[in-house]
Structures are given as C-alpha cells and as structure tokens.
C-alpha cells in the first residue's frame, strides 16, 4: 500500500486548487465556487482515508519534497549546515488528523450550500476561495514533517481565519474581531517563531522525526549534559519548548490569549465550525501532540501545559454559564474543551489528549453546524432568549444537536465522555503521586459540572419550552445540505468513543483500546513517535487509589459523570420549563464579572489602547519634536546665521572694495605675525 503515498501531496494541493479556481472563476460557476471546494475536500478525504489504510497496513511515509533554503549554521551548534525543507510525514497521528480535518472541511462546504448560498450572500467566490485556502493550510500543517513548515502553515491558517472572520467586512464589528484574532494569535506566534529559530539554531535541524530530529538531538544533549546557549540542556529545552507553546496558547485560545475566540463569532457560523473543530484552534493542540517527544523531555514545560489547560478548562466554562448568544456559549465551550486537551497532554496522557481532539472535532463541528441550522431556523437570530420550542419543529436539528450536547457534557455513552474521562483519569493517577497535579485535576473536574450546566442550559433554552419570538413560532425551512452533515456528525458523536473504550477495556480486560494501539504504532508507525516511546521518556510516576486500577477507574468515572449529571440536572431544573427566566441575578456580583469575561478584554484593550498607543504617540511626538527638531534646528541655525551674515553684502561697490582691502591687510597682518616680520 506504499504506492498510495505518491498521492500524499495532493491531499493539501486539491484544496489549494479549489482556492485558485474559486477565486478566479468563482463568479462564473453555478454555486459560486462551492462545487470546486466540495470536490477538492472530498478528494482530500478520500486520499486521507487511503493514507489511513496505508498506515494501518504498517506503512509510514516520511519524505522531503522540496528544499526551501539551505545554508550554514553558526556558532552554537555542532551541525555543519541546515536545510529548511518541505516534507510530508504521515504517521498514525497525522493520518488520523488528516481524515478529521478533511471530513469536517467537506461537511462545512456542504453545509455552506444551505447556509451561505441559500441566503443569497454577496462575495461567495471569496468565501469559498478562503475556505479552500484554509483547508489547504491546515492539511499542509498537519502533515508537515518539520517545525518550520509547521510554523509557516500555522501562520497561513491564521491569515485564513483573519479573512474568514472578517468575511462580512461591511460591518464594523467583523473587521475588528478579525484584527483581534490575528493580532492575539500573532502575539503567540511571536514566541513560536522565536522558539523555531532557537531550536533550529541550537540543534541544526527542525525535523520532527528521523535520526536527526531535533527531539533526538535534544535527548542526546540532555544525556550528554551539554550546555546550550549558556544554559544546561534541560533548562534550554524547557525555554524553547515554552516559546513554541506561546504559539499553541495563542492559536488554541488558552488563557491568557483566549480573548480572540469569542469575538471570532463575528464570522459566518460555518467558519466557526471549521475554526473550532478542525483547523485554527485544533492546530495548537495538534502541534503539542506532534512534538510531544520534545515536551516529554521537560517536566516543567509539561506541568505548565497541564496547569494552563486545567485552568483554562475551568475558567472558560464559568464564563459560558451566563452567555445569551448561542454561538458565544459554544465559543467558551471550545476554549474549555481545548483546555482539557492541554491538561491531558500535560499530564502525559498523549492518547487521551488526541482522543479528545478527535471527539471534540466531531461534536463541536456538529454543535456549530447545529447552531447554524438554528440560526437559519430563527431567521438569523442568535439570542437564545428569543428561541424556544424548536424541538418539535426541527426534529433532525434537535436530535443531532442533542447528541452533540451529550457528547460535550460528557454523558455516557457519548464520545465526549470517554475521552474526557480518560484525560481526568490520567490527571488523577499522576496527581496521586505528585500532589501538585491534583490541583490541575480538580480544576478539570470542577469544569465538568459547569460544562454539563451550560450545555443543557443552551439546549433547553433553544429547543424546549414555549417559543419566545415570532421567528421561533414560524421557523425558516432547512434543506438536505444542512441536515446531511448534521446526521453524519451526530452519528460520529455517538459512536466515536468506541475508538478507545479504555475503562471498559481495562475493567473487562478486553483489547479494545484501538486508538491507543494505533498511536502506539501497533498497526504501523515511527518508533520515536509512538505512545510507548513517549511513555518511556516521560519523567512521570503514577499512583492508583488503593493500588487498584479498577477502583481508580471507577472512582474517576463516577466523579466526572456525577458532576456532569448534576450540572445537567441543575440546568433541567432551572431552564426546562415553558417560560424560563434568567436566574443570573442569583449570582450577585459574580454575574457582572462573568458577563464581562473577568474583564480580560478590558485588560487587553487597555494594553493595546491604553499602553501601546500612547507609547506610540509619545514616540511620534518625540520624533517630531526632538529628533526632527534637531535636524530642523541645524537648518534653522544656519539660516539664521546666514540671514545675519548676509547683511555684509550691501550692494555698494565701495563697501566691497573696502572689505577687500581690509581683508588683504588682515591677511598681511596674520602672515606677518606668523612669519615673524614684526620681531
């Protein structure tokens, strides 16, 4: 099956072709470029599945396709030279991610037919072109075989999200949100780029895999006790790892760079689905998984990942509780869920993190597309307080949305439960050994309660009770292109958990942890990129409750399930009534804090407008007055001097003659004094 890999570049190039086609010919095409995008992403999905099959048959593809630049390294590295290349790495992780990304992209394209085309939007060729470019960038990012290539497409993903969030550029808010998204993630990418440069300059290579990968070099440096850039190896690895993590925090919307994501809801809902489920936001976490071997070398970096993740999970979940806009709730849930993935990866749960990444891709895409369907139903109304009672009028939307909600809330047996449970299990067994991680675990656990609450608050407000507006009384119809993606994703949200039923497998001693085996290279994979290899590198020790795996599993699962149910139950009690009321005033002072997102935005806006801009203005004033003042001052002095001096020139020839004579006599005197005539 190795010959399949010949087509690997086409996975990314097909959407790129769709981008060009939609941009150039979009206006002349029947569906304004949608057809090209659908064919391209379907092609990518087909090829990605082939890759998956090829990897399952034991093959791995790692090949350099193109040399971007070569040159000498300097100073600090033993490597002779460095080549910056474009290459493709298809291993279990990237093959899985390729399938997820191309599937979601395809479904989003199809959904767009109903969401964008049917609504008579302007600028559709631009929309489809940007979607194509987005998919291209993400797919190329996923199969990148080195850190620089990953960074380059990471940035392109950022560009596409800028363009798509700002799709409705005629409004005031969309361009502002787009700018914020790009700027905040750019701030993270600054650290990422410093990290890329630092890793390249340290190890002379940026490859993820292979003998000369930077991970292998770092391990060798660690073993050899080398000093890198004046630090001992572990410190330097931690520093560079954290620098790269800056990009991850920006793109995956982790605290404190998460503020762009709720604003990004200004884009079309389809774009939100793509950004949240498969592209932009997923890119960050995927990068951590991709270079997990590097982080495994640095316990401090991993601990920071775990705490950032755990804190973000809880922090974002609390904010989601008070939101009125259906898309805002989903936005905060995304931040929170990516926090879980970071927590999972940070506590060494590589499989758990990737598992949740996959499940989340399905159920979050489902929820966003479902929200998109609701928005169509509601004639473009997004306020949940104006909805209600859609359950009977739009059953397909309701049941699929419910499937997504159950998965998000982590209710057994939906997919979200299995992966979230696994993350929390990995966190607790680590926490039992090194107690500091218990704090991260506790934050993750508490977030489960809030997740259950806000998810079902959203479901009940939207679909249950009595219609609370005219639009809800008489919803707009939706077509097959909206329903079909919902159904596909609904089914996946229900069954995707089967991929790794870890608790069931461990309790019943069954070998049904397919994903774990998959990521461990049981079917095929590069040895240094497997779960088992990472496990050996990890500096972590774990412990179990009472020394029994079963007890620990059951306690952990019961805790998280119980909290999820109690959150959902509270929502049921408060909001599953015909005429629900807000109840938020009961929160008292906390309500305002939550509503305004802990004043995070205010702080960042203050940083931008209250600090940077005044500094810039002050610099400008300094430039205009002091620096340019000196320059103009020089010319003023000479102008003033000459305006005084020019008065010698009287225009009277007699005066000139007199000056001439005086000058001559003066010269004679000077020469006389120096020549010694007067002595």
């Amino acid at each position, binding site marked *: 099956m190795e010959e399949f890999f010949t087509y690997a570049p086409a996975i990314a190039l097909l959407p790129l072709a769709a981008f060009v086609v939609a941009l150039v010919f979009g206006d002349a095409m029947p569906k304004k470029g949608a057809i090209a995008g659908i064919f391209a992403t379907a092609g990518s999905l087909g090829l990605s599945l082939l890759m998956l099959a090829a990897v399952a048959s034991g093959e791995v593809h790692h090949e350099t396709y193109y040399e971007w630049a070569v040159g000498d390294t300097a100073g600090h590295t033993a490597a002779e030279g460095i080549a910056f290349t474009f290459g493709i790495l298809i291993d279990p992780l990237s093959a899985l991610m390729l399938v997820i990304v191309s599937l979601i992209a395809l479904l989003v394209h199809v959904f767009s037919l109903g969401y964008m085309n049917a609504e008579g939007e302007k600028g559709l060729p631009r929309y489809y072109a940007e979607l194509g470019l987005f998919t291209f960038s993400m797919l190329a990012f996923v199969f990148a075989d080195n850190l620089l290539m990953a960074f380059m497409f990471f940035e392109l993903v950022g560009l596409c999200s800028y363009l798509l969030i700002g799709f409705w550029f005629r409004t005031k808010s969309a361009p502002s949100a787009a700018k914020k998204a790009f700027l905040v993630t750019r701030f993270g990418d*600054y650290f990422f780029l410093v990290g890329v440069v630092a890793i390249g300059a340290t190890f002379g290579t940026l490859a993820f895999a292979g003998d000369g990968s930077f991970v292998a070099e770092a391990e060798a440096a660690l073993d050899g006790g080398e000093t890198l*850039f004046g630090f001992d190896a572990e410190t330097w690895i931690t520093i560079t790892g954290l620098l790269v993590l800056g990009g991850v925090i920006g793109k995956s919307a982790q605290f404190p760079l998460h503020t762009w994501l709720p604003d990004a809801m200004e884009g079309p809902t389809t774009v939100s689905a793509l950004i949240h489920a498969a592209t932009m936001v997923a890119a960050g976490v995927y990068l951590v998984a991709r270079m997990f071997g590097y982080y495994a070398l640095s316990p401090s970096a991993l601990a920071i990942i775990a705490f950032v993740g755990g804190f973000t999970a809880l922090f974002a979940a609390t904010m989601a509780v008070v939101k009125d806009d259906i898309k805002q709730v989903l936005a905060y849930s995304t931040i929170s869920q990516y926090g879980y993935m970071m927590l999972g990866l940070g506590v060494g749960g590589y499989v758990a993190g990737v598992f949740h990444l996959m499940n989340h891709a399905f159920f979050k895409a489902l929820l966003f597309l479902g929200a998109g369907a609701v928005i169509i139903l509601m004639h473009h109304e997004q306020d949940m307080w104006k909805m209600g009672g859609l359950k009977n009028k739009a059953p397909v939307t309701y049941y699929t949305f419910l499937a997504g909600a159950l998965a998000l809330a982590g209710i057994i047996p939906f997919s979200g439960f299995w992966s979230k449970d696994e993350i929390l299990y990995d966190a607790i067994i680590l926490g039992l050994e090194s107690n500091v991680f218990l704090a991260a675990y506790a934050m993750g656990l508490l977030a489960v309660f809030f997740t259950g609450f806000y998810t079902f608050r959203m479901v009940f407000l939207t679909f249950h009770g009595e219609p609370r507006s005219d639009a809800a009384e008489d919803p707009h119809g939706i077509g097959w292109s909206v329903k079909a993606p919902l159904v596909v994703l609904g089914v996946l949200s229900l069954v995707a958990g089967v991929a790794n039923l870890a608790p069931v497998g461990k309790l019943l001693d069954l070998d049904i942890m397919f994903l774990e085996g998959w990521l461990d290279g049981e079917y095929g994979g590069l040895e240094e990129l497997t779960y088992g290899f990472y496990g050996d590198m990890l500096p972590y020790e774990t412990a179990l409750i009472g020394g029994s795996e079963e007890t620990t599993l059951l306690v952990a699962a019961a805790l998280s399930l119980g909290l999820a149910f109690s959150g959902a139950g509270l929502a049921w009690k408060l909001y599953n009534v015909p005429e629900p009321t807000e109840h938020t005033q009961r929160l008292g002072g906390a309500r305002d804090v939550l509503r305004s997102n802990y004043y995070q935005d205010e702080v960042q806006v203050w940083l931008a407008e209250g600090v940077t801009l005044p500094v810039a203005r002050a610099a400008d004033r300094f430039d205009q007055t002091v620096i340019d003042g000196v320059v103009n001052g020089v010319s003023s002095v000479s102008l003033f001097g000459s305006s005084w001096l020019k008065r010698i020139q009287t225009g009277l020839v007699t005066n000139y003659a007199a000056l001439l004579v005086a000058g001559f006599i003066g010269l004679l005197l000077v020469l006389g004094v120096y020549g010694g005539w007067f002595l």
Partner: protein
Amino acid sequence: MMLELLIGVALVGALVTFVAPNRIAGKLAFAISLVPAALSIYLLTAFDGSGNALLADGGTIAFESSVEWIQFGEYTISWFVGLDGISLPLVVLTTILTTLAIVSSWTPIDDRESQFYGLVLFIEANLIGVFAALDFFLWFIFWEAVLIPMYLLIGIWGGPRRKYAAIKFFVYTNVASLVMFGAFIALVFSLDVTTFALPEVTAAMLNGGPQTEIFGLGGTSLASAVFLAMFLGFAVKVPIVPFHTWLPDAHVEAPTPASVLLAGVLLKMGTYALLRFNFTMFPDEVISTFAIPIAVIAVISVIYGALLALAQTDLKRVVAYSSVSSMGYVILGLIAFTQFGVGGATFQMVSHGLISGLMFMAVGVIYNATHTRMLTDMSGMADKMPIAVGVLIAGSFAYMGLPLMSGFAAEYFIFFGAFGSEFLEYAPIFTALAMFGIVIVAGYLLFALQRAVFGPYELETDYDVGRAPLHDIAPMFVLLAIIIALGVAPELIFDMITDAVDPILEHGGES
C-alpha cells in the same frame, strides 16, 4: 559590455524621453524601460560569476569591464563595473521596479510628463551604476547623481510640502555623503594602493591595513574611525534611527512612482553600501568593536520605527515609517555576521524593495481615486475598489512576514542567522527583541486596514470613486507574483547571495 549597454540604454532613453512630446512620454518611457528590464533578466540567466566581487580569492566577477579613465597624481581612476551575487539581484530589482513605477505613474502624473519620465529613467541609469560600479570614484559619481533626479521628482511633482521635503532629503543625504567620502579618501591615502578600485582597496585593507597616519591616527584606530564615519554616512541613507526623519517627509510628499523608487531601491543603496564597504573591507576586529552598539540601534530602529508607524494617521506615512523598521532588520542581519544573517539581510533588501514598492503603489492607486490618504477620512474602501484593496491586503500581509511570501523568507533568514551568531554577543536577546517587531507591524497594518478598507463605505469626496484602471493594477500583480515566487522559492536568488556572502565571512565572520 552588458552593463555599459544597460546603463547606456537608460541614459539615452532618458535623453530621448526628455525631448519627446508630453503626450507620448509615458508610453515611450515604458517601452524604453523594458529594454533594461529584459537585459537584466538576461543577466540573471547568464550570470556566471562566483564569490564576492570585492574579494578576489578564487571567485570571478560577472560582466566585468575595466578601462582606465582618469590619472590623478599617482592614483588611477577607472571605469570599472561588474556584478556578483549581491549586486545582481539589486540591479534586477531596480530595472523591474523602474518599469513598474513608470506604468503606475500614467494615472497620477499629468504635468510635464516628458521631464518626469526622463528623470525616472535617469535615476534608473544611476542606480544600476551604483550597484555595478567597482571603482570608488565611479561609484560615488553614480551615488551622488541619484540625488539630483530624486530631488527634482519630489520638488516638482510632490505634494504641498514638497520643497521642504526635497531640500531636507537632498541636504541631509548629501551631508552624510560628504562625511563618508572624506573618510573613505582618508582611508585610501593611508593604504598602500594607487587606485580607487574597490577590490584592490579591500585587499590592501585586509592584508596589512592602513600604513600611513592621517590626523595622528594609524592602523586599527584609523580603520575604526573610518568605519564609524562611513557607517554614519550610510546610516542616513538607510536610514537608521535617529537619522531617519528625512524619510517620512520625502515619502509623503513624493509622487507615487518616486516613493516606489525611493523605498524600493534608494534605501537599499545605504544597506548595500554598508555591506560592500563597512562589512566587507574592514577586518572583523574593527567590526566587532562596534557590534553591540550597532545591534542596539538595529533593535531600536525596528521597534521605534514600528511604534512610529503605529501612531500615524496618514496611510503613506504608515508605510514610510515601516521602512525604518524593516531596514532595522537588515542592520541586525549584517551585524550578526553569519551566512543566514548577511545573506538574509541582502535578501531582505530585495524583498523589502518589492513589498514596499507594492504598498506604495496600492496606497497610490487608492489616493488617485479618493484624493485622501487619511485613515480617519476613509472607511470601507474594499466595497468600491475590491481589487486594489485586495492587493493592499496581500501587500500588508507580505509586509507582516506571511510565510510563502518573500518577507517571511527574508525575516526568517535574518532571525535564524542572528539568533545563533557568536560574532555578536547576546545575539539571542537582540534577536528576540527585534523579532517583536513582527507583532507591532501586524498591529499597525491591521489597524490601518480596519480603518481604511473595511467597515461601511464612508468617504466625503467630490470625486467619483470607482475601480482603478488596468494599468494601475497590473504592476501590482507583477510585484505580487515576484513576492510569492521568492517566498516559495527563495533559492532563486538566495543561492547566489550566499555564494557572494561566504567570502566576506571567511574574513572573520562565521561562515
């Protein structure tokens, strides 16, 4: 003889255009400028040089020709031209940008056209001369001759404050040239040479250094003094903070095509000369004395320039100040003195020439339609001029260093080269600080875009704002294509650049 032909065509073309009727001058100048453009692209394909033109060890100079010209006491001045991997890309940049600048001036220039286009061609001839000349006097003649047409272009066809801007530009850069000229002549007189040919001066400088004392200075201290004086001289041209204040005035007042050439090529004269003189001729112990201060002002240029751009409300001023910032990267790359650093700096010269040219053209096209450049006046231009705005957005992202565009390649090379440099102490810290520029640059460009081109269309104007004509748009697409080509395949020129940079580094840097 190729280079003589190149310069000759531009010079004769300038004369012909000067006397041609106004009506046809634009088209005529365009047709004439195609010849040097085509020739220079031919040079790119026929390039057979290797090594650095100033350092003879084993390399050959491409398209070399040398004729004795003036005998001046015991010193010989010759017509000595030739290209290497550093100068050739800049020659090609010059010819291509000139052609495109001529096309982009068809719309805005409607007065004394024949003189305008004649001067543009005259600049082109001199710019090619600057990059091709290998004799100091010849080089200096071209160097100074560039100022005259640019002074006239700003002073005659410029905006409301054109006289102030033109005089400031001329006097400032001219005084700087004087400092540099004096320093270099002093150096030559102290060396054991009887010619002003740069390769021989370089060889004498590197093997032995100054032999005679001048003003009581000799040996390394003379070399250091000359290095400093020449650095200051070129710093104005680059420009490096705090010698940059002529730049925004000149840019803002200059007509679009002049801004394109000013930012695109004229600024590169400064960095090119820095590389050719300061970083090639002087032994590394001299350069390393100044390494830390130069790195400091490079970082200041990047950050301070970017902050200034953030504070502007005139779109053209935004782009003008951002040039200060971008040139700071070049200085950082040079002082890192590594292959990627110096090579990246040279790459950035070309890349920034293309990108800033593109930006000025896009701003110019919008100005042609709206007759305002104030961010506060404009809103929603994307609605009215989708293609021009699309190019402006693409150019902005190129400026921010978006991967797969030349700006990213250039900046990445510089950052990578600078970060690992052992020549420069504290290199990682300097690099990391300078890299923060990429965040600020994104900030002010996105802010400007949000204000000017997005949002609801609002513009109080008596002019009919509509789509720009094809000949305004086409040059921008040519530039965009080159920018993307260089971003995807930097090896197109990076190869020859590193080949020419390596010999420099062998004299003390890290190759």
